[in-house]
């Protein structure tokens, strides 16, 4: 059966299973695992931010870690230098820092006179991440190579939000809202332009689209999401360091998306859950304790090589991922009504 004729839709089913599973998970797991799962949900924000850039807009970025880390450092500074840890301020700070930083990078790399090559943007963002990592590593005001610990808990008024059940649901709700907002964007007419960008960027220019502007907008939106993730991450872990804003975490964002399945918003979330779960379990096996990252690397390499559309690719076709944007059914009804009348 061709993809064209296979009209079965799996994404809504997976969305519901995932949502129900994540809502009910704390009933079946202990507090330690809840904390691990919270971290995964926060990293899900980072993965979605990469996916919006690569899977939907064709921007290969190694800069998502930069926006994630910048926001993390910003909220850590607010916490340590000003004693400010209120959630109603921390979340906007993360979003604003992510937005501003990503807009500056977009302006430098994407909004030039000519459309930039993929490799130019990839290397450009990689350089920014690397430079930022080196900068904070040697800057003692922000903790240097040791990073910054946050000693006060994230708070709402006088209520302290410790890592645990409440933080889990806050992270889950944030991820859900970001997922819905991103889905709204990629399913809109704006999303159709993004789908066109991925397939035939040159053609779009000849239709009158200034593709660079669309890319810069998505990149900035994705930066805001990464910033939001960074702010939550820093408070959840009580720590932010150079490793949380450099090439390492930026590359992990790429792997989450590729492993889970690029081209959909679900793929990166599944990628985070899968990679982090595998890492957690492998690191616990005594026999491979000293070299478990190698085993993880082989697994990742295997999936990315033999299943380029990721785990989600076992169920969801490329056609379903791209979807349709028009309202053909309505017209069919209209024609049917015309015939009946």
């Amino acid at each position, binding site marked *: 059966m061709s993809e064209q004729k296979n009209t079965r839709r799996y994404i809504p089913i997976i969305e519901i299973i995932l949502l129900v599973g994540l809502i009910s998970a704390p009933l079946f797991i202990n507090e330690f695992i809840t904390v691990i799962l919270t971290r995964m949900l926060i990293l899900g924000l980072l993965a979605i931010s990469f996916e919006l850039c690569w899977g939907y807009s064709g921007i290969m970025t190694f800069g998502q870690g930069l926006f994630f880390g910048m926001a993390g450092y910003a909220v850590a500074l607010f916490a340590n230098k000003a004693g400010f840890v209120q959630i109603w301020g921390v979340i906007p700070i993360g979003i604003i820092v992510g937005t501003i930083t990503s807009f500056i990078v977009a302006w430098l790399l994407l909004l030039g006179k000519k459309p930039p090559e993929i490799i130019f943007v990839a290397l450009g963002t990689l350089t920014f991440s690397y430079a930022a990592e080196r900068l904070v590593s040697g800057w003692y005001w922000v903790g240097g190579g040791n990073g910054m610990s946050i000693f006060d808990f994230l708070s709402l008024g006088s209520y302290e939000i410790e890592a645990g059940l409440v933080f889990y649901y806050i992270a889950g709700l944030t991820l859900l809202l970001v997922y819905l907002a991103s889905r709204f964007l990629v399913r809109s007419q704006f999303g159709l332009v993004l789908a066109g960008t991925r397939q035939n960027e040159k053609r779009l220019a000849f239709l009158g689209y200034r593709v660079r502007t669309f890319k810069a907008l998505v990149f900035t939106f994705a930066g805001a999401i990464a910033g939001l993730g960074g702010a939550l991450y820093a408070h959840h872990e009580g720590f932010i360091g150079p490793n949380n804003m450099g090439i390492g975490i930026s590359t992990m964002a790429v792997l989450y998306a590729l492993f889970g399945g690029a081209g959909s918003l679900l793929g990166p979330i599944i990628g985070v859950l899968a990679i982090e779960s595998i890492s957690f379990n492998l690191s616990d096996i005594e026999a491979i304790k000293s070299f478990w990252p190698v085993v993880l690397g082989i697994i990742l390499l295997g999936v990315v090589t033999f299943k380029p559309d990721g785990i989600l690719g076992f169920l969801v076709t490329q056609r379903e991922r791209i979807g*349709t944007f028009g*309202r053909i059914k309505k017209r069919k009804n209209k024609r049917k009504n015309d015939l009946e009348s």
Partner: protein
Amino acid sequence: MALLEIKDVGKKFGTLRALDGINVSVGENSFHGLIGPNGSGKSTLLKAIAGDHYADEGSIIFNGLDITQRSPEFRAKNGLNLKFQITSIFPELSCYDNILLSIQSMQSVWSLITSRGKDSLNDKIMDTLEQFKLADRAETLAGELSHGLQQWLEIAMSVIRKPKLLLLDEPTGGMSPEERRATGELLLPIKNHTTLVIVEHDLEWIKDICDNLTVLDQGKVLDDGSVEQIEKSEKVKEVYTTRV
């Protein structure tokens, strides 16, 4: 007044002079053909008009605007459209979405995010798909269409925008004689609102559809005039009998 004025346009690729002092004038609502042997500069000229590459010399005036060095986006926004020689569509989008993508480019970014125009464009899109015999394939992926239908889809993507000037680079390339005839029939109704500049190898087809022809040879205009004038031109006959 001419819709398109090409004045002394020149274009070099390294040492090769692809266009050399080209002067062409195209009137409003006319069908204008560009013909000539292989390598004569037809496609290069069309691309210089569309903005796929820029002329090194001379000027291109479209609807009173000097567009010589303007971006393809600017030209498209001002009513100039190009159908590429090699079919250029969005293969993983449905036919419907290809057309929607083409026509929605006039909307603001905000209205695209909020999808405001989507419903109001539906009937127009379906009418265009019907006009180009693609209504039954509205949901089919563009990449799954036959070559001829892909060409029609790309033309439909331009026609729905009602451009002032439509540039067609070999619109019947790879088509059967029946498809060529049908393509001509599909294009005729747009004459009321669109000027057409066509590059085509099939001389019989282009003579049937066009009002005027410009013959290029080795990057220069060999002759220019009505179809009848060109048919009688000795210079053109010589080139076509000796080199084509």
